[in-house]
């Protein structure tokens, strides 16, 4: 059981690596946004994993004494998710405008277009 204890964190690391890999390797800007979202959600999973208490339940108070999980990471991540989608939308809007201006959403084509002019 000792080695099982931090498996959650190992998988968070793996997800974060995959997210970063997509952000760097993909040339398509929408694919990059998906990579950023995977990176972001790996951080969410890390926070929620830290807040889990063994044998606990959701932090909604009951009459009888109970063990609850830590509510603080829940609060932080709850707002972060909604802010995350708002910023994702802003990024997508920028991509749509880039497509209008350059006719492509390939980052290197855009780069070449800028250098040519």
């Amino acid at each position, binding site marked *: 059981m000792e080695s099982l204890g931090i498996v959650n964190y190992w998988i968070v690391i793996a997800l974060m690596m995959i997210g970063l890999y997509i952000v760097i390797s993909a040339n398509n800007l929408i694919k990059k946004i998906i990579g950023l979202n995977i990176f972001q959600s790996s951080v969410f999973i890390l926070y929620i994993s830290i807040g889990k208490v063994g044998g606990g339940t959701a932090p909604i108070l009951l009459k009888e004494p109970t063990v609850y999980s830590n509510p603080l990471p829940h609060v932080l991540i709850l707002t972060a998710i*909604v802010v995350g989608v708002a910023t994702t939308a802003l990024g997508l809007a920028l991509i749509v405008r880039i*497509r209008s201006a350059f006719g492509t959403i390939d980052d290197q084509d855009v780069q070449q277009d800028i250098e040519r002019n």
Partner: protein
Amino acid sequence: MKQHLILHVIAKIMIPFIMVFALYVQFHGDYGPGGGFQAGVIFGAGFILYGIVFGKEATMKIVPPPLVYTTAALGVLLYTGVGVAGMFLGGEFLNYSVLSADPVAGQHLGILLIEFGVGMTVASVMVILFLSFADYRQPDSQDTD
């Protein structure tokens, strides 16, 4: 989506339930899972479903963009307004205890009001995001729908 009869009928049945569920999540958030953020997103999702099935012109008739822009700003204003009201009543900014004679009742009232503000802003912004994307036309695009 104009020709999909099943989608039209099912969407018309589902949307009222989505809206009522959003209101339940909004105002029951003190006692169970829920709150302004979740309710706002669900409420916005109801309008987005309408927009996908019935088209953006019909949606803009129900929620005209100026109205949504106003409610988005009003939500933030309600939140800050509750904070400033606490200052006028002798407490600190966003201290809800002074809103009522009983501090616990004041906290309860303050949380209800600011969660409503959060829900209003989040729902409006989600509708704004969807309508902005739906309304945009690429300069070189040929299709009309």
